């Protein structure tokens, strides 16, 4: 189980997270939604200990990761896989070396066994004969899938996905979503997905949470979230900008301003 308690974080003078509380049960898929720049990725990085909280705690299986030594934290990280937003594949390594990285680093096994694991993980994400290619030679969708194969190479208990479908076409997004569901069901992985893609959220989520202005606005089952009457939640789910945001767009429209200034001069 994974729990976040009263998490606060300041970045660049901005109070990004303002007391986030969340709980993810074992085997559950939690989808965190929220607008761009609201701190979703920052929240995810706290779960892996890649960022230290200013206040609050992140508990993984009851242990506060902020109080772990570097070695204990690394042991804990072995239970995690993470798919980064841009894939974060190592440019200087082949696809094989990328997927085998954690195995090379932490597992002692014969080369043939390692090659078999890499081949199998690539097959799970629907790729073959790409082992000797470099990330620069792959399309966006292939990169995401290789990154996903790398994230699950060591059979993690938890997988964190940072905007897994961003930048992909709708078909490839659906393929990635299907993969997330398949991995969760077949490997019994506890999953956290950060996204603002509602189709992805609906397909993957057991529960959903919305991060808004640094706090969790709502944490419920997908059906409840999609039926929410909370204006902020409903606007986000249905992709509607608020009246204030729309008004701002028209207020700063250049032609009207120019006309206004010309009018003032004429007066």
């Amino acid at each position, binding site marked *: 189980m994974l729990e976040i308690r009263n998490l606060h974080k300041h970045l660049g003078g901005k109070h990004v997270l303002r007391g986030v509380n969340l709980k993810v049960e074992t085997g559950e898929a939690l989808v965190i939604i929220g607008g761009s720049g609201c701190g979703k990725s920052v929240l995810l990085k706290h779960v892996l200990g890649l960022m230290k909280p200013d206040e609050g705690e992140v508990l993984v299986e009851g242990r506060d990761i902020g109080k772990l030594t570097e070695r204990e934290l690394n042991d804990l990280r072995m239970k995690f896989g993470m798919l980064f937003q841009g894939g974060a594949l190592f*440019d200087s390594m082949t696809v094989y070396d990328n997927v085998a990285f954690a195995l090379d680093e932490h597992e002692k096994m014969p080369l043939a066994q390692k090659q078999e694991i890499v081949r199998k993980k690539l097959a799970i994400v629907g790729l073959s004969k790409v082992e000797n290619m470099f990330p620069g030679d792959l399309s966006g969708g292939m990169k995401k899938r290789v990154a996903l194969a790398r994230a699950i190479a060591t059979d993690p208990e938890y997988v964190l996905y940072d905007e897994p479908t961003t930048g992909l076409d709708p078909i490839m997004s659906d393929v990635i979503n299907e993969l997330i569901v398949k991995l969760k069901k077949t490997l019994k992985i506890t999953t956290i997905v950060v996204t603002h893609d509602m189709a992805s959220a609906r397909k993957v989520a057991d529960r959903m949470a919305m991060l808004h202005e640094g706090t969790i606005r709502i944490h419920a089952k997908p059906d409840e979230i999609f039926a929410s009457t909370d204006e902020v939640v409903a606007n986000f789910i249905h992709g509607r900008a608020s009246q204030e945001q729309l008004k701002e767009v028209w207020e700063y429209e250049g032609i009207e301003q120019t006309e206004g200034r010309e009018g003032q001069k004429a007066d």
Partner: protein
Amino acid sequence: MSTGLRGFRFLLNPLQTAGGVFLLFLETLKSAFGLWPRRRILVDQFYLIGYRSTPVVLTTGFFTGMVLAVQSFNQFRRVNITTMVGAVVGVSMVKELGPVLTGLMLAGRVGAAITAEIGTMHVTEQVDALRAMAANPIRFLVLPRVMAAVCLTPILTLMADFVGILGGSLICVGILNVEWHFYYVNMLDWLSVWEISVGCAKSSCFGLLIALISAYKGLNTEPGAAGVGKAATEAVVTSCIMILVSDFFLTVMFQAIKPEWA
């Protein structure tokens, strides 16, 4: 940063860099006593930092030796001791010009490359990916570059010294008609194992500074292409300045260990 301190940013930024580089040095030292980098990564770095820098270092050393010979010959001819040109070229190249110019050339060629590579990895979350897979970025990214720079800068310096002396002798003996025998005898009289060791020790320190400063700037790159460019520029400028500053202190230190006038 408080408003009062903002005015002193020009002073605080170098101090912050100095502190950060020192902490990175301690972390690198700690990781050197643990598990070493993978052999393939080490070989790559030795190739990139050593082999690929050889042409630029040899060219610099060769022409510096020739210029030094021409300038020294013109001065020494006035007092009729042109046979001492060999000693001047030898000692200058081995103790000062070889290490410093090799360091400066490496700061430009290798330092910028280290910062750009690590910086790009930082902004594309590859450094975070390393940490997420429980791998130590210092062991993967910093230690191999530091090891290659510390081991290979003295070797590159010795090569620069050799071609510098060769260039000087070509000018003096081949064009300016200095007696070959006196050129080399005088040079060898003034050069000893100590001088060569001082040059190598200095260049090792320069290699360490270049790799650490460049890696530090890379790991602290601001997001975006502009951030990587800015970090690479800062790494080269800071490395060059630190090579010149540390050269003075190293010279004084070696002088204190074995005074030349004693």
